């Protein structure tokens, strides 16, 4: 299923790139027509479109996305594998941080419903959700780079990871906290929890072995695709913090009309997302005894 879907996505993307006006060589200064012809000939753009599509597809099927048009001498595969680790590092760190904060806050809020903890964490979650990361990022920079001089405002370095990771984690943590709270509230009132308590299990076991397992199912279905999105790189955060990640490259490749690179990244991302959705589906079975796969 994944392969045909990916090919379909590539075809659509290819068509969209083709329909978009302008070329990778479009520039302020007009090119002499002869030079434009030379460029088209060199990159096979003078062939009929179905031939170009055929050549492109044949190469894609063999896993060869060719060379970037814009960055001469660099292959698409090389560019993706070079920049994916940057995005993945930030993504995984943000994911872990979001889970830690979100789950903790969610569980506490649900246990102490209508207490100050509940209102506090719910409010923070609302704030996290409603402040977009292009606002949160610069705000954090202001506080931690210009008032406290603790952290660098941008660029890739160990200390430089903190701000983008926090910025990225905030919205996910908020979401996870809300989902956890809601999930936990529902589960903790269900019959099997009452049964567990009636068995005389201590509250810790009830909560961690029985409650949490059911309570975080909504979180899992949310965080699967979320992790894929985080790994793939997030354009805004990578732009604001000048991180050389895949999201940054992706946007640039579209603006550059760098067709092979666009196709390569789209293919990579679509496979990534589909794989993660699959993993989420499988993990349901482990979490909820009611869901079993034949």
């Amino acid at each position: 299923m994944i392969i045909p879907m990916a090919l379909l996505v590539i075809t659509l993307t290819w068509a969209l790139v083709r329909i978009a006006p302008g070329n990778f060589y479009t520039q302020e200064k007009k090119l002499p027509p002869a030079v434009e012809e030379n460029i088209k000939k060199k990159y096979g753009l003078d062939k009929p479109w179905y031939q170009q599509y055929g050549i492109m597809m044949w190469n894609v099927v063999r896993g060869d996305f060719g060379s970037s048009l814009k960055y001469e001498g660099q292959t698409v595969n090389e560019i993706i594998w070079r920049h994916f680790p940057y995005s993945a590092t930030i993504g995984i760190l943000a994911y872990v941080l979001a889970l830690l904060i979100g789950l903790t806050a969610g569980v506490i809020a649900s246990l102490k419903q209508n207490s100050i903890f509940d209102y506090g964490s719910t409010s923070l979650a609302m704030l996290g959700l409603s402040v977009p990361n292009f606002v949160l990022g610069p705000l954090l920079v202001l506080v931690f780079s210009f008032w406290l001089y603790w952290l660098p405002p941008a660029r890739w370095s160990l200390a430089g990871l903190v701000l983008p990771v926090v910025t990225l984690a905030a919205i996910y943590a908020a979401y996870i906290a809300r989902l956890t709270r809601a999930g936990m509230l529902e589960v903790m009132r269900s019959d099997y929890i009452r049964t567990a308590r009636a068995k005389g299990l201590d509250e810790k076991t009830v909560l961690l072995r029985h409650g949490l397992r059911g309570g975080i199912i909504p979180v899992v279905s949310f965080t699967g695709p979320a992790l894929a999105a985080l790994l793939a790189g997030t354009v805004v955060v990578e732009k604001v913090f000048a991180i050389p990640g895949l999201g940054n490259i992706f946007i640039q490749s579209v603006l550059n009309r760098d067709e092979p690179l666009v196709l390569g990244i789209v293919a990579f991302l679509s496979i990534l997302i589909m794989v993660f959705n699959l993993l989420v589906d499988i993990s349901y079975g482990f979490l909820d005894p009611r869901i079993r796969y034949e």
Partner: protein
Amino acid sequence: MSRMRFIQFYSISAIILLSIVLNSCSTAGGNRYFGSTKFPKDNVLRYISGAEPESLDPQISSGQPEARIYTALYDGLVEFDPKTLQPIPSIAENWEISPGVDEFIFHLRKNARWSDGAPLTANDFVYSLRRGFAPETTSRTASLGYFVKYAEAFNGNQVFIRRGDKFITENDVAEKPADAPVPPPFGPETDFHKFLHAPARLTLDGDTLKRAQAVEPNQKLKEFFKFTAADFKNAPALAAKIKNGGDPLSQYLAANMPADALACAAAADCSDAARQAFADGLNKATDAASFFTQDWFAGLTLAEPAKKLGDVVAAENKKRADANKKIDDEIAQLTDDAKKAEKEKTKKKPLGKLFYANRFVLEQSFPDELAPVEAVPVKGEDIGVEALDDYTLRITLRQPAPFFLGLLTHQFFRPVPRQAVEKWGKEWVRPEHIVTCGSFKVKEYRPYDKLVVERDPNNWDAANVHLDGIEFYPVEEQATTLNLYKAGAVDAFLNHSVPASWIDEVRQYKDEYMNLPENATSYYSFNVRKPPFDNPKIRQAFSLSIDRVALSQFRKITKPLYHITPSGIFPDYDRAMDKVGEEIRQEKKLTPEEWDKQQKQFNPELARKFLNDNGFPVNKAGDGFECPSFPTDKVVLLFNTTESNRQIAEFIQAQWKQNLGITVPLNNMEFKTFLPFRNSLQYQGLALSLWSGDYMDPYTFLSLHYGEQNDGGAGFHDPKYDKMLDDANAELDPQKRNEKMARAEYYLIDQLPVIPLTINATNWMKKPYVKGMYPNPGTLFAWKFIYLEPDPAKWDTDVENLMNVSDPQVENQLRALKSTMTK
């Protein structure tokens, strides 16, 4: 928590956030410098260079960010003067210029080396230029160098035309042949130089069909392609073939030439006169519109190039016929006669008669009997670049070009390493393969993160390179750029990068904020090919109704532009403009006030008069005006999507509304969508253009509207203007040349294909300890002049205009470099 307390909570957090934001604007005010100013640990300059460089190959890309990097990695024949950008010696120690300013001899220094230690010689420059112009290199800046003789022809796959042993020259086919005497040789005479100095050969398109289309309308040129008696390799055999009519082509030829033209068929009768008659007969049969449309053509077995040509012509004719049929269908549906006529005009004619194409088919079909008109491809070896010896280079131009030396500072003319290019192909630019020749060489390259370069000990001038290295950071976000600078993580950043909302704040830091006129202009081009802006008076009306002073005040960092070239960049030219302006004022018998008013170009009254006189009456309506007859549905003000472009457009839209009562609709497009749309003149009305000069001469702006295919964006072409510029460039005296160019500029302003708007200003920052880095009009740096000053007492303080500050170290270095010029 009640609902009230909830609201309280949020309002409090909102207030806290707001105060954080507001506070940030006032914290920095008290300091002498902007943000953190700490002298860096290493002797390495950290510079934000903008977009990720496309390639480290200086001949491919046309980008601005790359240009800064190339000048660090590659030395050219000449280098920029760090302040004036005028050419100073680099690999060329000195040079000679021919009396006609169309030939240059460069004497190279003997100690120039590549980063791999190999010597850098004149042959490297010859190789690099041939490579740069080679069609397969697909350089996007090659057209800058078309002044080099035959470079344009080589770059565009063109051909020389040879008949027998003689090449056709441009003079042969010119309407008025020039009779200029061949100038005496400049420098030592060589066979190659004789070829370059001979009258320019005619070059035509390499594509047979395009060549045929170029030949057809030019009678004088066509004559050279006619069959002559000398073209027959074997006249009797050919005549016999045609007479016998074995194939459809022969039958066609026989039927379309006089019967006696084939007298040659009998070898005994093939006299000179008979051969001539045969040639005339062939010409008659071949010069027929019906040639390619013959029914027999499809069934003809032709040799490959002729067959392909036939296919192309047939396909092109079919395409045009189909398009016309579609137009016919549309016309059938229209009722309005005027619209019908307009549609009718858009029809395309069939290719029609193409004598040379027909002749080509004959040549290919009878290769043993007919000698072809030879199309000899222009090769790299033909272009006007010659190594006289290892350390002497001669460049020959096709026309006088006094600015050519300045052009040589451009990245396109900087040498590339033959040893690496030939070994690694297009992968030679990878950090593990790259070989460079500049003050710096590649140390580490992490795309989208940083490019680190270090001083190259092999460089001929390494002793005078002050920095140990440079780190180039590819950051495009303006806010991020400024953050990094404010935090002291970078020492300087690229031009045009302070966000508009920050300008008022940072301009207080005069020592760091670089805000001076730039070799760049903004203007709106009119589409002069579509009404209503095909009328110069209407164009002037729209220009006269804009208050440029107000616009520049609104923009904060620009100056008003009244002409085509920016004032304040070329002082000599400014003086020439004043002088010629005064002459024109007297010729027109205007008072100085009237003239001044015309020149300031803000005169809404005159603008309304122009509209009134040209069929668009402007009426008073309440406090303002209205102009109901102006076709606002046919004009749009188009710009590429940025916030500042929108602000300018809205500002000017308001001015027209106020002064003319006309509301021009606005439209914006993403940059790469916008460019082809504007350049192919698809827009209606007006479109924004920005132009940064390629070299330090007014011609880089004036040539925007030169020739049929130009970069002006307006579709303007006026042979009279072209002639004026040609005359100016042929003028050898710099002052007279400036005056002639100024005349041309005033002429262009009368035609007004564009609305001049603003002279742009540099907009970047550098730390006070960075020295030798100047806000020159192109923001281009000769990196070897830059140094970091550790002593805070010597940092830039209270600088009004850095360009006027004298720095003994920079000046001594400059003097030492220039000293070789007089050797």
